[in-house]
């Protein structure tokens, strides 16, 4: 069974009903380490060796955060900058994360229809997430299709429950090392190119 590390970054978690709903059913699951970055490092003073140990102990890393200004909250970026060290996560002999899986779970205020070439934001979520995708790839991780809960301002309580259950399902699949593409009716962002095929060409 896989072990999952959820790196959760939300500067105002207490005010986010969507993320509360998402988190509540997965944080105490067996095999899941829920790592609340803003609670752990309110002063942004990240304990790098602790973080590296955590990563080494887990098979799957989930970046879970709200989508702010087309990116992650600053502590998450700080985490990436500090923890994914040269010579450890990437570069020569930087293979600590090789073969691990990386899943990004985000919440956006804007709905799916504003994130497309016809919408206000012009680009799709996947296009905005390219830096993360490439970061995971540079570290030799498999970047799974991101899971996005969108249009959070319009979500009803029932919708929140649905997404929450989907999150649970995703986690269950990952724990058992099953392919996420077997999950039906789930809002994945599926336009990630299959780089394994590209590399083969």
């Amino acid at each position, binding site marked *: 069974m896989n072990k999952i590390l959820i790196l959760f970054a939300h*500067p105002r978690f*207490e005010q986010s009903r*969507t993320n509360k709903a998402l988190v509540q059913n997965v944080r105490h699951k067996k095999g899941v380490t829920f790592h609340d970055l803003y*609670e752990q490092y309110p002063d942004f003073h990240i304990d790098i060796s602790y973080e590296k140990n955590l990563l080494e102990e887990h098979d799957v890393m989930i970046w879970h955060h*709200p989508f*702010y200004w087309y990116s992650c909250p600053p*502590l998450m970026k700080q985490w990436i900058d500090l923890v994914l060290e040269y010579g450890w996560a990437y570069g020569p002999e930087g293979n600590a994360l090789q073969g691990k899986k990386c899943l990004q779970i985000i919440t956006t*205020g804007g709905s799916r229809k504003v994130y497309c070439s016809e919408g206000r934001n012009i680009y799709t979520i996947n296009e905005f997430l390219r830096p993360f995708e490439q970061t995971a790839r540079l570290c030799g991780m498999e970047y799974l299709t991101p899971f996005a809960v969108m249009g959070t301002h319009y979500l009803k309580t029932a919708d929140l429950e649905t997404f929450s259950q989907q999150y649970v399902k995703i986690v269950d699949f990952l724990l058992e090392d099953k392919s996420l593409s077997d999950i039906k009716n789930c809002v994945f962002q599926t336009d990630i190119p299959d780089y394994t095929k590209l590399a083969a060409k």
Partner: protein
Amino acid sequence: MTGSILFEAIAFLAGAVICVPIAKRFGLSAVLGYLLAGILIGPFLLGFVGEEGEDILHFAEFGVVMMLFLIGLEIEPKNFWNMRRTILGMGGLQVVATMGFSMAFFSLLSYDWKVSLTISMAVALSSTAIVLQTLKEKGLMNTTFGASSFSILLFQDIIVIFMLGALPLLSTASHTTVADDHSSTSLLENLPLGLQTLAIVSSVAILVLAGRYLVVPMLRLIARTGVRELLIASALLLVLAITLLMELAGLSPALGAFIGGVVLATSEFKHELESTLEPFKDLLLGLFFMAVGASINFLVISENPGMIGTLVIGIILLKAIVLFVVGAIFKLKLDQRPLLTVGLAQVGEFAFVLLSFAFQLHILNRVQMDMMLVVTAISMTLTPILAVLNERIILPRFGTRESEERPMDTIETTNKVILVGFGHFGSTVGRFLRAYGVEATILDSDSNRVDLLRKMGFKVFYGDATRLNLLKSAGIAEADILIAAIDNPDSNIRLIKLVKKEYPHVKLMVRAKNRYVAYELLNMGVENIYRETLDTSVKLASDVLSEMGFRKYTLHRQAQKFIQTDEESLRRLAKQSRNEEDYIFKTREEIAAQEKLLEEDRKRGIIEDDHLWDSEQMRVL
């Protein structure tokens, strides 16, 4: 002119109000101010108070009693027990040696052996009132020599009981007549020695038990009534009751009060009692010092100035030598020894008691008593003067050197940062600077610490940083930054004033004990103020809130904001509090300032305007 109580009260109070500030202005201790005030209003200068000075002396001894009670309050029983070796060792050696030499000295002056012995007893004792008050005033209680002084004084307080007990044995007069005269009526005087000892032991036991099982519950009861003055009344009652109990048992009230204080040191009323009795103690001690001044009989001096002079100098020298040697034996450092020596070289207030008792017992005649009383009073008056001479002339010359000779081959680098005070606060500052590779030049007044720091390779100057010379030799002229981290706010402020005046180019970073010190510093134009009570308390509060379930990052932001607002209000309120003399009315001022602060907080309301990252406001309902 004398006689009316009202008039005398006015004379004493006016004397104090006029002389003490003058003494302070010249950088002398308040004790000297009081003594001079006493001389001034005494029978030989202005004559506002007459012979009754001695009665006032007895009354004012309550000040000494209260002082020991307060000192006891600050010493927890465990620490007291730890001091037993220094008390017995240093105290015992000092008393025995001084008595021995003084016996020889007075025998040389061809006094009868009984007279010599009596006078020697008086001479062996130093002034608890002067020494402890000076130590407290200068904040030196916690230094090695401060603790040694205290130990010796405590031993003297204990030994005086036996001296008073032994005096009648020297007397040729019959006991009955004596008992009639004796002002402190001890119930136990006529009991056999064994029973007396038993009574002494049991009265100490009563004191300890009553303190623990009677006084504390009583105070709790009183505190519950909520009537403030009752607490003041009970504090006074406590001290007076101890005094009475001790006098009945033939013990020194000061010693009893000290034990009482130690017993209550661990109770929750410690601080309440301290703040209640403090003003009474100060006032009574002031009165005591004035009474000492007033009791200097200039007639006796004018009749035999040579003899008095010889005695004063002889006794002070003799005591000083003994103290110096005792200090050496007990491994006091070379520079701490002069402080101890000069500090305790006077004849103390117990001499007044011993001498007049001996006179009543017909051991001394009036001439002898008067002479010794004058010698005592003069030696007490000289103490603060000698201390000033010691500090300014003797100390800088030896002991822990102010600066260290550096080996020739090292290149003298001027440290751009001067750190004054390496206590709890300053040491943390210095350690972090050093961790960064910045070696500050350190100034500190504790020689033990200075030696340790030198061993650790710090560049350290030893001495009083409020002296211009020391600052100069520490290289203030070339320094960029001076960190003032002295524990005592008054010393810190004196340092700031000096540096601002003489070296305006030096940037000042100043530790402020609290908000009120910060006001004062701000009004002096100091910009970089670090309140030791701000960041830590806010940190504690946010940890409490975190324990209650609030999110840490939000707390972190709000704490920063709170500190920022507090800094702003500090600057605003500092302007309002601009009144140089205001700090005298400290408590009133502080309450008023606190009220303003709470009022500002109330106006600002509780934290709810925090919309950062709050998506709820965008929600479509």
